């Protein structure tokens, strides 16, 4: 049985548009276990992004409790929430959100640079880790390119590497395949799955694509701001995969075997 890494209890989120109150989600309670590969599905306006925002500590609930990695988000001030996001959560955005003025290597390295390169690891170790991640997502030869010079799928691969660079416990992906063609979308999903399996990182992604939804171990379906289905496909992930890393990878050597086989040079490369 895995530990609960995310817990939402009776969460409600209301947005105020002028004088109109819009209840995006209501009475949402859910638990996500560490290492799960979770999909949040539902049509547009069902509250998928709102839940990701709350889990990602970029928004606070109107009522209810959100606990992320053991911390109640409503108790934290802006700096602590930023710290929590920085240390524990990686983001993959629908529109990739790479920084246009930085090259691929710098984009992946960016969260580490925000950290001021502090911590126990040396600069050389960190650079090795960045290179390893870029290699893992199949963009070693594009390292010095700018995001504008890459296809959509390649950009999303960069975003995945960036999301993992801080070795977070959770990666949130908001419709990561929505702006990609289906082949590229599948490739991205496979890459995410592989990262999930290799690093033991909890991946939570939102989607409205029914095929992609079914790729997850844990499916949460929303409709009109409430959960209509919360289903764990495999109760014990160890049974499904036959292996599960007990410790998250912390060095390229620890994980290199598991990542080199990913289809990192998928079909998305042709779309600039």
């Amino acid at each position: 049985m895995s530990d609960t890494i995310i817990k939402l209890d009776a969460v409600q989120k209301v947005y105020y548009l002028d004088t109109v109150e819009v209840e995006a989600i209501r009475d949402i309670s859910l638990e996500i276990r560490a290492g799960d590969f979770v999909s949040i599905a539902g049509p547009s306006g069902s509250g998928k992004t709102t839940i990701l925002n709350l889990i990602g500590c970029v928004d606070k609930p109107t009522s209810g409790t959100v606990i992320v990695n053991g911390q109640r988000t409503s108790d934290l001030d802006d700096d602590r929430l930023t710290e929590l996001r920085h240390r524990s959560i990686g983001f993959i955005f629908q529109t990739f959100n790479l920084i246009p003025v930085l090259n691929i290597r710098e984009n992946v390295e960016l969260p580490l640079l925000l950290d001021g390169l502090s911590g126990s690891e040396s600069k050389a170790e960190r650079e090795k880790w960045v290179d390893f991640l870029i290699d893992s997502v199949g963009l070693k030869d594009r390292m010095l390119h700018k995001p504008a010079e890459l296809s959509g799928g390649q950009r999303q691969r960069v975003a995945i590497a960036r999301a993992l660079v801080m070795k977070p416990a959770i990666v949130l992906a908001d419709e990561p395949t929505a702006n990609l063609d289906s082949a590229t979308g599948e490739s991205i999903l496979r890459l995410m799955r592989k990262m999930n399996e290799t690093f033991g990182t909890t991946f939570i992604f939102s989607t409205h694509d029914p095929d992609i939804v079914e790729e997850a171990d844990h499916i949460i379906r929303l409709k009109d701001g409430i959960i209509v289905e919360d289903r764990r496909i495999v109760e014990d992930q160890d049974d499904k995969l036959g292996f599960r890393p007990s410790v998250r990878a912390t060095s390229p050597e620890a994980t290199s075997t598991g990542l080199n086989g990913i289809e990192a040079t998928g079909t998305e490369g042709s779309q600039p």
Partner: protein
Amino acid sequence: MISARLAWRNLGLHRKKSLIIGLIMGLGILILFVGNSLIDTTISGLRRMFVEGYTGDLMVTGPTEFSTTVLGETAGSEEVLPHIAQIKKYEDFLISRQDVASILPILSGQVSFGIGEEELGSGYCFGVNISDYRAFFPDNVSLLSGEWPEESDEPWVLLSEPTYALLQQSSNTEVKPGTKIIMTALANSAGTVIREVSVKGIIRFNQSNEQLSGITLVDADTMRDLLGFASLRDGAPQLSEHEAAFLTDFDPDSLFDNLFASQTILTEGEEQPEIVSGVSSEDMLENAGLGTIQVSSSTTVTAEIVPAWQFLLVRAKKGANTSKLLDELQAFSEQLGDGDRVQDWIAGAGKVARTAVTIRLVFDLLVAIIAVVVVMIMMNVLVISVNERLHEIGTLRAIGAKRHVIRSMILYETTFMALIAGAAGLIIGFILLLIMGKVGIRAPNLFFEALFGGEILKPVISIGAAIRAFLWILAMALAACWYPTRLAVRIEPVVAMRGE
């Protein structure tokens, strides 16, 4: 540092906006640098000319409600010309100081010149002890012909070149050393005074303008006569005991006490009302340049000699703090309680220097007004820039950038622009000033000629002006980015989750 790297790269990415702000900043720094250099050149030229040639660093004048310059702007505007009653005390005070190099008492006024009965023109005169004057202004006066006067000489005059030319043109008599000329002045307290003096030489002021080059030097006693002060040429006045007592006790107003007896009948025991006297006997003594009367046991008394001087010029030692000296001299003057005025060279120099300083103030005011407008334009451009980067900033916030990272990114951007545009503006300004320094700016009229201290102004590159201009631009840039920075740090990370 990541915020600096992001800021630098963003300048390149948003070239058009960077160029707009950069141009504004560059132009601003160029105007400030060149404008301030021109003003600095003018003021430092004027300062050098006046301090080294006419006023010294500081100037003490007698009590007056009018502004007083070394050219005696107020001469004739008061019944009794102001003079420094306790000049000896000032001299003692100043000589004892470590920061004072030298002092010089002078007299000043406007005088008419003539030969025989012919009046030929007028001009400003300084009444001086020539050896003291030459020691105080060693480099400013050249003798073109004749010789320097001696202390024992008869009343003398050193004609300035323009005055000499005027007399030469207007008179049938050849003017040369030894020529007797008539000097006439309207001394308010003594009526019209006429003195004959001998031309001792023709002089030229090495640093001068149209007005200053015409100043004529005359011996101090003659100048005192012309201004209505008592001359000490004949030594101390010898007074009988009776005369001394008369001058001490005599109240001229008492002569008129009974003129209006019907209105001033007093009842017994009523006190005599105080009569306000316009000119007291003390005033008369004072105006005569005489101080306390010392009555001796003999039948005659000798008045203590205090020659009247209108101005006491003070030259500070090189590197001395003249502001401190001014403050302390002012405090000393207040202690003496005569109401004397202590002023700097600008007040002593008069209209021209005040105009230059006023031009600087006006320029600074204009710069301040333009700065406000420029700051608004820059702020708008920066706000647009921040709004266009909502998504990028939101992403940075989402992936862990704290607010201070965003703040420093915007600050770096603005500072980089200020540095680049500032450097460009300074380089262009430097080149412009070099060219102007070679070619020179010709004064369009006499006013500017006075201001420039000559027909052509050759501006010098002022490092102070460059630093001031740069600091101005930096301050403007920081002011302009204050609001955009506030906007940027308020961008919430949730913005990153929205579509672009």
